[in-house]
C-alpha cells in the first residue's frame, strides 16, 4: 500500500511538472504583446522597464527557469493589469469566497442527489423514479447560465425574495448555491440509482433477505453501504464541475470569487493572472483526484487487496 501511495505521489509530481511546463509555453505562444492590452501609448523607456520588470526581455528558456523557480516557492508573479497585486495573493483572497459557495453547493447537491438516487432505485418504474430521472436529465442538459437567469428571474425579479446578485450577506449565497448544486444533484441521482440497482441484484442481498432480515435492515445495512462506495470515485469530477460552473455563476451573480477573476483576466488579457490561475486549477484537480483515489482505497477493502497483489 505504501508503495502504491509513493508511486501515485511520484506520478502526481510528474503530471504537475508537465502541466506547468505546457501552460507556460502555451501562454507564451499567445499571439500579441502581453503589454499591448494596456492600451496606453508608453514611451520607449517605460516599455523597456515594463519588459524588464516581468522578465520579458530575457530569452524564453531563462523566463521558463524563473517561472519554475517562482512556482516552487509558490510565487506566481505579478498581475500585468494591476501592478502591485501578486497572483498568489489574489488567488488566496478570492478562492475562499469560491470555496464557501462551491463547497456549500457541493455538500447540499451531493446529499440531495444521493437521497433522490436512493428513492429512484427503490421505487423503480413508479412515479418517484420518473420524477427523479426527469430532474437528473434536466440537470444534465440545461446550461448553467440559463438556469441562473431563470432563478434570478423567478426569485429575484418576480417574487423578490432573494437579491438577484451581489456579495457580502448570507442571503446572497442562496441563488448561486441552488444553481451550482443542480449539476451535482443530477450526477449523483443518476449514479446512485444505477449503483443501487446493481447492488440489489447481488447474491449477498438475496442471502440477507433469505435469512429473514427486515427490508429496512437489508437496505440500510447491505445495499446502501455498498452502493455509496463507488460514488466516491465521481467526487473529484463533481468538484471540477462546481469550479467550472463557477466561471459562469460567479460572473452572473457578481460573486468576487476566483472564477469571476479568471474570466475577467481572460477578457482583459492579463496573462500572468490567467497562467497562475490555470496552474492553480490544475494542481487543485490533480491533488483532488489523488485524495479521492486514496480515500476510496482506504474505505473499500476489495481495492486494497487488489493493489497489494
Amino acid at each position, binding site marked *: 500500500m505504501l508503495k502504491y501511495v509513493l508511486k501515485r505521489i511520484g506520478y502526481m509530481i510528474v*503530471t504537475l511538472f508537465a502541466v506547468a511546463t505546457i501552460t507556460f509555453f*502555451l501562454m507564451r505562444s499567445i499571439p500579441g504583446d502581453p503589454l499591448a492590452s494596456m492600451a496606453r501609448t508608453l514611451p520607449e523607456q517605460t516599455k523597456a522597464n515594463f519588459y524588464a520588470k516581468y522578465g520579458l526581455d530575457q530569452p524564453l528558456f531563462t523566463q521558463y527557469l524563473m517561472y519554475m523557480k517562482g512556482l516552487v516557492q509558490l510565487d506566481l508573479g505579478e498581475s500585468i493589469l494591476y501592478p502591485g497585486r501578486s497572483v498568489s495573493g489574489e488567488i488566496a483572497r478570492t478562492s475562499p469566497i469560491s470555496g464557501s459557495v462551491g463547497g456549500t453547493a457541493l455538500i447540499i447537491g451531493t446529499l440531495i442527489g444521493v437521497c433522490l438516487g436512493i428513492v429512484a432505485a427503490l421505487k423503480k418504474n413508479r412515479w418517484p423514479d420518473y420524477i427523479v430521472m426527469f430532474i437528473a436529465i434536466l440537470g444534465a442538459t440545461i446550461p448553467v447560465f440559463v438556469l441562473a*437567469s431563470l432563478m*434570478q428571474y423567478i426569485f429575484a425579479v418576480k417574487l423578490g425574495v432573494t437579491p438577484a446578485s451581489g456579495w457580502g450577506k448570507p442571503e446572497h449565497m442562496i441563488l448561486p448555491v441552488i444553481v451550482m448544486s443542480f449539476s451535482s444533484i443530477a450526477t449523483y441521482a443518476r449514479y446512485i440509482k444505477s449503483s443501487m440497482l446493481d447492488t440489489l441484484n447481488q447474491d449477498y442481498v438475496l442471502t440477507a433477505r433469505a435469512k429473514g432480515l427486515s427490508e429496512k435492515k437489508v437496505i440500510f445495512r447491505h445495499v446502501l453501504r455498498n452502493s455509496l462506495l463507488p460514488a466516491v470515485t465521481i467526487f473529484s469530477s463533481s468538484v471540477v464541475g462546481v469550479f467550472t460552473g463557477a466561471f459562469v455563476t460567479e460572473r452572473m451573480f457578481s460573486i468576487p470569487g476566483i472564477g469571476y477573476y479568471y474570466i475577467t483576466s481572460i477578457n482583459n488579457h492579463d496573462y500572468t493572472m490567467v497562467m497562475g490561475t490555470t496552474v492553480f486549477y490544475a494542481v487543485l484537480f490533480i491533488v483532488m483526484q489523488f485524495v479521492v483515489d486514496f480515500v476510496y482505497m482506504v474505505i473499500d477493502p476489495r481495492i486494497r487487496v487488489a493493489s497489494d497483489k
Partner: protein
Amino acid sequence: MQSIPKEKLQIIGIEDNGVEATSRPRVGYFQDAWRRLRQNKIATLALFLLLVIVVMVIIGPKLSGYAFEEVDKTVINQGPSAKHWFGTDKLGRDIFARVWVSGRVSLTIGVLGAFISAVLGCIYGGVAAYFGGIVDTIMMRIVEIMISVPYLIVVIVLSLVFDSKGMFTLILAMTITGWCGMARMVRAQMLSLKNEEFILAAQALGVKPWKIIVRHMIPNTLSTVIVSITFDIPGYIFSEAFLSYIGLGIQPPNTSWGAMASAAQAQFTFYPYQLFFPAFMIALTMLCFTLLGDGLRDALDPKLRK
C-alpha cells in the same frame, strides 16, 4: 489397424431435404439494432426531433423572409408576433432566422467535434491496445496527464492561444484534448475483447488475425464508439455555448446558440423571450442526443441479445 475401404464411407441415410435452410432472411447486427431502437419509443421520438431540428437548421433561415444579420432599427426588442415569429433582438434582427443559423454553427461544432475526437481516439486507443507493453504504458501515461487537467480550462487556454474567433479554431481547441476519453475507452474495450472466449474460439478454429480484427474486434468496439459519440455531441454543444458565453467563442456577425444566449442574457429581465429560444434549442438538442444515446446503448449492446 485395418484399413476401411473408401466405398464404405458414404452418406446413406440423410438427404438434403431443406431442413437446414433458413426460412427467413438473415437479420444482420445493425438491422437487429435498428429494430430494437425503433421499439424504444423515447429514443425514436428523440431521433425524430433531431431530424426536425436538422431540417429546420437547413431550411429555417429562408422561411421567415429575413436575413439573420439584417439590422432594422425600427423594430428593436419586439416580442414574438405574426411578423417576427420569435421576435427581434436589440438590433432589430429576426430571432427566428438567427436561431436556425446559430443552429448550423452549434450542430456543426457538436457533430464535427465529436466525430474528429472519435476518429483520433479510436486510432490512438487501438494502437495502444494493439502494441501493448511499453508503448501502451507510455501512450496511456500521456493521456492521463492530458486528462488530469479540467477540460474547460484546457479549452479556454487553447482558444486564447489559437486566438479563436471562428468555428474551426474553436473545434480545434475543443478536440485537441477531447479525444483522450475516447482513446481510453477504445483501448479498454479492445483489451477486454482480446480475452473474450469467442476470440479464443476464432483463434482455435484457425481464423486469420486480420479477419478476427475486421470481423470481431471492430464491430464489437464500434457499438460503444457510436454510443459514445452520441453522448459527446451534447458535450461539445455545451462547451461551445460556454465559450461563446464567456466571450471566447463565435464572434459577430456570426452567431451560435451560446452567443445568442450570451447576448440575450444582458437584458433578460426585460425581454426573456430573447434568451428563451436559444436556450430552449440548446437544452432540446442536448436532451435529444442524450436520450438517443441511451436508446442506442440498449439497442447496440450485444450482451442484451436474447
